[in-house]
């Protein structure tokens, strides 16, 4: 199973994401934002956390218009897997690969702490290593993680079982306590919390490990 992790100027979780994929058994290649295509045979694209382009204009807006993002969008449209974490989730909403947008946290503060997430669905390659209803501890570190979508979009997400994770104690004002959502074909996951920071016993928590093992395992056996 081959994964590519995108690197933008200002990405700072790119190597953490690569390590998490690699420890789960994936071959990982890094790709630069100016690249116009993904490496041949890539199954999964990771869009990492950080502050791409200094968060100028809007978080993720400039990254979303970079050359590599055209290739990422084409990969997703062809049924490829994409995983966006934190700033990567913001990039995926800015590209339109996932619906909604991430606003400034309701309390206006940057929040860096470990939070409880309820797994809402095990019906995806990313979440099949959990049971729906499990509560896992995963760190968040963001200033703009307040998920917003209009009522009809939220109803569609709820109705199609596309909410992957919900905060047990909403830290940022996200509508419907949403921490992560799936695409319509369930092959794209965007989430604000950082499972790659809870994927090794040295991290102080390993609740994120099951996500990487599940999706890498699923794509390796496919």
């Amino acid at each position: 199973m081959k994964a590519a992790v995108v690197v933008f100027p200002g990405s700072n979780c790119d190597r953490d994401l690569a390590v998490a994929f690699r420890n789960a058994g994936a071959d990982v290649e890094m790709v630069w934002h100016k690249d116009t295509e993904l490496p041949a045979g890539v199954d999964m694209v990771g869009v990492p956390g950080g502050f791409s382009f200094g968060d100028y204009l809007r978080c993720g807006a400039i990254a979303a218009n970079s050359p590599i993002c055209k290739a990422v969008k084409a990969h997703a449209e062809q049924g490829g897997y994409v995983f966006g974490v934190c700033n990567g989730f913001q990039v995926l909403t800015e590209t339109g690969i996932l619906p909604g947008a991430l606003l400034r946290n309701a309390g206006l503060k940057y929040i860096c702490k470990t939070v409880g997430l309820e797994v809402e669905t095990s019906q995806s390659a990313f979440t099949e290593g959990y049971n729906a209803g499990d509560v896992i501890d995963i760190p968040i570190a963001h200033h703009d993680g307040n998920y917003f979508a209009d009522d009809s979009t939220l109803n569609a997400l709820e109705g199609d079982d596309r909410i992957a994770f919900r905060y047990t104690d909403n830290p940022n004002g996200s509508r419907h306590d949403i921490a992560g959502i799936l695409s319509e074909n369930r092959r794209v996951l965007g989430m604000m919390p950082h499972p790659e920071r809870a994927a090794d016993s040295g991290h102080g928590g390993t609740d994120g490990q099951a996500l990487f093992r599940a999706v890498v395992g699923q794509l390796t056996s496919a």
Partner: protein
Amino acid sequence: MKATVHVMLKNGVLDPQGEAVRHALGALGFDGVNGVRQGKVIELDLADGTNEADVTAMCEKLLANTVIESYRVEMS
């Protein structure tokens, strides 16, 4: 030719920064303010031949996120 683009959060989208400004005004004794919305103004110095339709395209593609923001273009 210059274009001024005003970008605002849409009505119905919570504006935590505007709310914080409203609270701060209240704390200073300006109690006659019912609400504050904070947006941004982007000034573009346009090359010859760039018209309003081009600026609108720029807004749709990059300058505003129309999921959460509305925009208004002024040409001068």
